[in-house]
């Protein structure tokens, strides 16, 4: 079984609440769930949708076909009716749309009337819709009732009761009136899953890594990280400071880091453009900082709420001068959680900036996972503090060492002084102008550290046929879609995926020879959500391997499974013939 539900309407109609609630109900049932959203940069009106896919087997992308379409406005019908599958359903409330539809697919459910009858509150029309969907699937209401209680108990008994009654009314109505409904639901023995999106995973990863300071200026799609951490501020004693601009945000984060706490900032490309001088400052002063960079289509402000993977070359090259950095591009929320932790660890260990390069798509998509394993979280305090710092005879913040890593003392913890400078400096951190020190410092900051950092980088994930003729290569958020494409196509082709999530320093072939796989394949295709093939360029620069085939999508929308499979098939046919 593998079903998709799509909810379409205007901003402000509660589309997201319906989607989030249904997704949670399914994941608590033990189904695998994948959700994806599409919205415009406005608070009310416009056209938005929320798509949920659930199955008894893992799912990690959205399909083009919809089994149930819930429409709250005429546009949703216009855009999405063609996507409804042969025996699918469209549910709507003729009172909301002010229109009745006679086609077989349509089921008119009085969302508003049922809400008013059962709760005297038309806002609960959304709960009626949720109940109706469960009624169509004949999934019992127990889990939804629990969830409604958890969500609304703060608002009082009446609200809970009204919601429960509304859900029940929607459920009964759909069950009794959907004569064409014959969904097959395979019960699973799975335990409930957690349901997490990319943003939450990054924020949670930061908190789990002991991040104590987060400063940022709001910009989609990174704002959610600030919101999430701010929500946990009191519980975990974290300071979240909304800076006056991105320049300030990164400089504040560097200040806090210099003072001795783990710190982070988050932004999108436009904001990152402002942070770049600060990035170089992190490089020169060897101050650790984690930067969550949420890509969205550019140039300039582009498509504010849509998705693109077009900032890789920017992040690779951003800032003047030469210094090490790491860039992780998680492919799933689960990877985002663990990689954020790894970013904090490496950043602190080597005193360098670290990026979590994500995009709007992975930010908003929710996936089901087994509970995250906190034992895998690494937390080492690399700073020199208190007694350890006091007991040193001599201290120099930028001392030359074999590893290139200088001791990073917490200012004020000892009589030793911690001095650093954005100008070239000596071991103590004071300004210098001489050539010899400059050379030694570059050896220390760059040449000595890079091989050590490279060693920490894991190879790409290989999935599919062990001797593939077709290799699909992707990075970051395209993970799920490429993996499912491999599954589909593998029925009649030898196909595999190479997915890169630790992308800079570029993984060496020592741990795993992915180049051999690429060279042995008949067709290798680099799949990216951008126009110019930025990752393909990186691969060529780092390995010399040149992709002859690329699939690039740059309409601001993510790949869909069916769309990508068809694109891949076309490439394969063209290349063969």
């Amino acid at each position, binding site marked *: 079984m593998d079903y998709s539900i799509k909810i379409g309407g205007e901003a402000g109609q509660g589309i997201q609440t319906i989607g989030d609630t249904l997704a*949670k109900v399914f*994941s*608590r049932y033990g189904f695998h769930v994948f959700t994806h959203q599409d919205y415009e940069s406005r608070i009310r009106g416009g056209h938005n949708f929320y798509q949920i896919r659930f199955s008894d087997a893992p799912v990690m992308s959205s399909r083009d076909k919809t089994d149930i379409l819930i429409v709250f406005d005429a546009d949703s019908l216009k855009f999405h009716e063609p996507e409804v599958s042969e025996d699918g359903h469209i549910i709507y409330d003729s009172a909301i749309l002010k229109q009745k539809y006679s086609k077989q697919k349509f089921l008119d459910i009085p969302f508003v009337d049922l809400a008013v009858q059962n709760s005297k509150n038309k806002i609960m029309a959304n709960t009626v819709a949720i109940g109706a969907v469960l009624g169509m699937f004949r999934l019992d209401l127990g889990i939804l009732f629990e969830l409604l209680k958890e969500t609304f108990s703060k608002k009082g008994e009446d609200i809970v009761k009204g919601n429960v009654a509304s859900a029940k009314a929607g459920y009964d109505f759909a069950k009794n009136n959907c004569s064409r409904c014959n969904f097959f639901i395979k019960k699973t023995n799975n335990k409930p899953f*957690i*349901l997490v999106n990319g943003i939450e995973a990054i924020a*949670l990863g930061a*908190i*789990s*890594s*002991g991040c*104590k*300071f987060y400063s940022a200026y709001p910009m989609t799609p990174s704002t959610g990280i600030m919101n999430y951490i701010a929500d*946990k*501020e*009191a*519980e*975990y*004693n*974290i*300071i979240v*400071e909304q*800076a*006056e601009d991105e*320049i*300030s945000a990164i*400089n*504040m*984060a*560097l*200040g*806090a*880091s*210099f*003072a*001795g*706490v783990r710190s982070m900032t988050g932004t999108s490309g436009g904001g990152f453009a402002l942070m770049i*001088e*600060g990035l170089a*400052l992190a490089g020169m*002063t060897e101050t650790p900082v984690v930067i969550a960079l949420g890509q969205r289509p550019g140039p300039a402000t582009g498509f504010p709420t849509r998705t693109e993977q077009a900032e890789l070359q920017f992040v690779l090259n951003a800032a003047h001068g030469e210094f090490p950095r790491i860039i992780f591009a998680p492919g799933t929320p689960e990877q985002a959680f663990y990689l954020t932790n790894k970013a904090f660890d490496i950043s602190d260990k080597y005193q360098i900036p670290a990026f979590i390069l994500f995009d709007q798509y992975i930010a908003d998509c929710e996936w089901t996972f087994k*509970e*995250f394993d*906190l034992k895998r*979280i690494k*937390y080492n305090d690399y700073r020199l*503090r208190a007694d350890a710092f006091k007991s040193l005879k001599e201290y120099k913040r930028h001392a030359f060492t074999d590893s290139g890593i200088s001791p990073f003392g917490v*200012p*004020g913890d*000892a*009589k*030793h*002084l*911690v*001095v*650093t*400078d*954005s100008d070239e400096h000596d071991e103590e*951190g*004071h*300004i210098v102008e001489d050539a010899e020190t400059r050379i030694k410092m570059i050896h220390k900051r760059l040449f000595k550290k890079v091989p050590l950092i490279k060693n920490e980088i894991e190879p790409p994930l290989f999935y599919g046929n062990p001797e593939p003729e077709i290799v699909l290569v992707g990075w970051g958020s395209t993970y799920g879609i490429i993996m499912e494409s491999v599954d589909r196509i593998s029925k009649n082709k030898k196909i595999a995926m190479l997915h890169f999530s630790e992308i800079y320093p570029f993984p060496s072939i020592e741990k795993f020879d992915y180049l051999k796989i690429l060279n042995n394949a008949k067709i290798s295709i680099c799949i990216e959500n951008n126009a110019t093939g930025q990752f393909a360029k990186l691969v060529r620069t780092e390995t010399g391997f040149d992709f002859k085939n690329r699939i690039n999508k740059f309409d601001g929308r993510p790949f869909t499974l069916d769309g990508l499979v068809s694109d891949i098939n076309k490439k394969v046919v063209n290349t063969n013939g």
Partner: protein
Amino acid sequence: MVNLGDYKGQTPTWCMGCGNFGILSAFKNAMVDLGIEPHQFTIVSGIGQAGKFPHYLKCNTFNGLHGRTLPVATGIRLANHEMLVIAVAGDGDCYGEGGNHLIHAIRRNINVKLFVHNNQIYGLTKGQASPTSMEGMRTKNQPFGVFSEQLNPIALAIALDCSFVARSFAGDMEHLKGIIKEAINHKGFSLVDILQPCVTFNKINTYEWYRKRVYHIEPEYNSSDKSEAFKKAAEWSDKIPIGIIYKNNRQILEERISAIKDTTLVRQVPELSKLQSTIKGFY
């Protein structure tokens, strides 16, 4: 006990006779008087002649970017609010490149002490006009004279209800030392605008020019009266007042943040035991 010797840093590269020497000396004396040891505070500076200040001293130092002094100082202070954090900037650095940060540091009322070496010119880049250059001043870049209105940092700060606003003069070491001490002892964001002759590039606002004009604010002056403060702030002609111009007791940012009500952020060990229950919230 600390003494002046404890504060001896690198040899300054400033021009002979530069006003920065007076500020350096007054600062060291103030620290010795206050009994503050070099490791007990951090100076954040930007870029410019003034930005080099901490290198000619001994203390914890973050010498960052042009104009970005206050955000770094804010980050340091929030991470460790038991540390005295001082920001040192030039007028170009703080009122030009970093103007936005000044406004917001004052609004936040973070307990950081800002000392602006105001020489009314860009020193390090060799003599362009700064936001505080007087209208009409000619430079290589402004051959017809400065067209823009001279920025009045004192009035700006009072308008923003800055917690402590003072002016002093690099040629009056005793006065300057006193003001530095008052600024440090004040609880709240403190701006001290220090008139600093640049003997190389500013041929108008010389020691002599300032000496003829500056006067100590009368002892009976009430620095908590905002409208009086605006009047003082407006004086920039034959008579230029130096001293504490405005003061208030606004609550500081650090005291409003619950995360640090018991101890500083740097002293806190991450509390990871609660994570399991946070993750449970995703079911």
